[in-house]
């Protein structure tokens, strides 16, 4: 009864655990997702296109994916700094800061959305100072990096407009980057930096040519997780986005709106488009990750 997949080991149970895994994934992930595809199978092509390609829906795709990408990029950068500080330095209160990183995981997203919109609103604690600065910052950015229409993406007030979506998505994505980077950073041998130093590399070269490439696979994982989470985020965004149709309306909100109008098929159709797009994006990120791990043994 030798099976090529089966190897004798100290802990038996390959069959049982694989069976459980498949059944579990089937129940929790696969069946609900295939139900979505079944639901739209009855739609005519015309209805499908009408549901998923109306200008308002298309604007929401652009917004959802674009701002999620932006937020994940910002998280990859600042999350790296947070992880670096938490791993490399010891300072009073480090454990508290470390615990704070997990808050976006634990907080109900609606609470996060309400709290964020309260403090970032024009009359809020932070918003009253930051709002004018933000407008100037976006203006600056537009002159430095002119090939992206920053005023379109991030212009307007902090709360109740597009910047609010960006803030909420950054908030919920941060722990993914920090938590994936931390263990890898802690494992990174200090000898690598010392070797680079004795070979004459300066700090910048050590960082960009030795440390960052070593961390790159973990950084991509964190980025992908933050990105995926941001694409699907609903609870916190709807409170801070302002939800102006075709302007600051995210795709999950479109789905909810359609549901509220009893347009179940239309809602499912939009969901399927999101699903496929997300799948393709994550696939691409996985390929990038595989490439970035080309040097490691496993």
């Amino acid at each position, binding site marked *: 009864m030798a099976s090529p997949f089966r190897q004798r080991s100290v802990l038996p149970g390959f069959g049982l655990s694989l069976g459980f895994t498949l059944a579990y994934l089937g129940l929790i992930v696969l069946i609900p997702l295939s139900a979505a595809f079944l639901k739209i199978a009855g739609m005519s092509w015309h209805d499908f296109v009408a549901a998923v390609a109306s200008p308002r829906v298309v604007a929401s795709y652009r917004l959802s994916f674009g701002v999620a990408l932006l937020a994940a990029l910002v998280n990859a950068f600042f999350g790296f700094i947070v992880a670096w500080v938490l791993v490399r330095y010891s300072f009073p209160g480090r454990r508290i800061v470390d615990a704070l990183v997990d808050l976006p995981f634990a907080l109900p997203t609606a609470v996060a959305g309400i709290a964020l919109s309260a403090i970032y609103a024009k009359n809020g604690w932070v918003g009253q100072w930051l709002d004018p600065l933000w407008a100037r910052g976006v203006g600056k950015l537009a002159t430095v990096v002119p090939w992206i229409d920053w005023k379109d993406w991030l212009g307007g007030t902090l709360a109740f407009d597009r910047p609010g979506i960006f803030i909420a998505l950054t908030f919920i994505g941060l722990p993914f980057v920090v938590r994936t980077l931390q263990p890898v950073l802690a494992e990174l041998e200090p000898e*690598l930096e010392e070797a680079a*130093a*004795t*070979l*004459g*590399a*300066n700090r910048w070269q050590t960082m960009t040519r030795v440390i960052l490439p*070593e961390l790159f696979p973990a950084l991509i994982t964190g980025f992908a997780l933050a990105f995926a989470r941001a694409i699907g985020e609903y609870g916190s965004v709807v409170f801070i986005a302002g939800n102006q149709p075709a302007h600051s309306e995210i795709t999950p909100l479109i789905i909810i709106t359609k549901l509220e109008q009893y347009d179940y098929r239309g809602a499912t159709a939009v969901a399927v488009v999101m699903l496929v797009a997300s799948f393709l994006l994550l696939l691409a990120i996985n390929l990038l990750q595989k490439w970035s791990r080309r040097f*490691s043994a496993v």
Partner: protein
Amino acid sequence: MSIAVKNIRKTFGAFTALDGVDLNVRSGQLVALLGPSGSGKTTLLRIIAGLEYADPESGRIQFHGEDVTDVPAGKRKVGFVFQHYALFRHMTICENIAFGLKVRGRRERPAKDEIAARVAKLLKLVQLDQLGGRYQHRLSGGQRQRIALARALAVEPKVLLLDEPFGALDAKVRKELRRWLRRFQDEINITTIFVTHDQEEALEIADEVVIMNNARVEQVGTPQEVYDRPASPFVYQFLGNVNVLRAQSLAHAGAHAPTEAMLEVDGQIYVRPHDIEVLPHVPGAAGVVAVLRYIHAAGSTARLSLEQVSTREPIEVETTRVTLAGLDLQVGDLVNLRLRQSRSFDDDFSI
């Protein structure tokens, strides 16, 4: 390039890693820093490399008469090799070796084809010319360490520092690699310091051995000097096997001509196992009487475990297998022992 270390102190909190260490290494020598773990040898090496700095109020480090105490590691022109290789995983072997050249400023950096030529030369030097395009995970430990050495040599250092370079390798590779290092060092004649806790390694390949213990240098000398004339009980015990016997017990047995000083302090006698001669037991004859407990006859020499009859002190003896066969001994037999050569230290001598 010669290296001079003058009165270096290093403390980590309450722990003293180096307590006023002096060291002089002549140009072109291969020097071993030998000591048990925690003796400060790695810390000393790292301070010489500039990876760590001595306590601010303590002494100086000079390379060829030039003070480098405050010069950062990258500007000291040292090649450093780590115990666990510290190769860059995301670079191929060639890229690893070229790293030190590629990070140079535009004016000092050699041209691309010159870098490639130098990498090829170094790969040849460490006898791994075929592996340049691989990543490190496809190399064995010994190969990785040779690549690490090539990488360190690429920047043409004036000093080569190796921190337990063979520590992570298995016994056979270790032996091969250390002999290779010796030949290699003879060829390129670069001042080299390596750290090891393996006395065999140090005695075999070093021109000079620096024995460290408890944050201090115990003795400096050629391998033969430190083995034949240990300066302290510690060195005696650390280098090779030794029997430590109470002087008085030997005196009573009439085995040894004890000096008066030895008898007064009840000092200890240090005898190497191969400096004890085993004789057939003759009742009443002068010498230490011992009973044979065990014979280890596997290997080039035979080791005997004995026990002194009067004091029950264990004694180890090494003898040739031919001699052992001539004696025709069985476990449990009584024998007489004669000490060919032994040594004692005054109590105030030991630090």
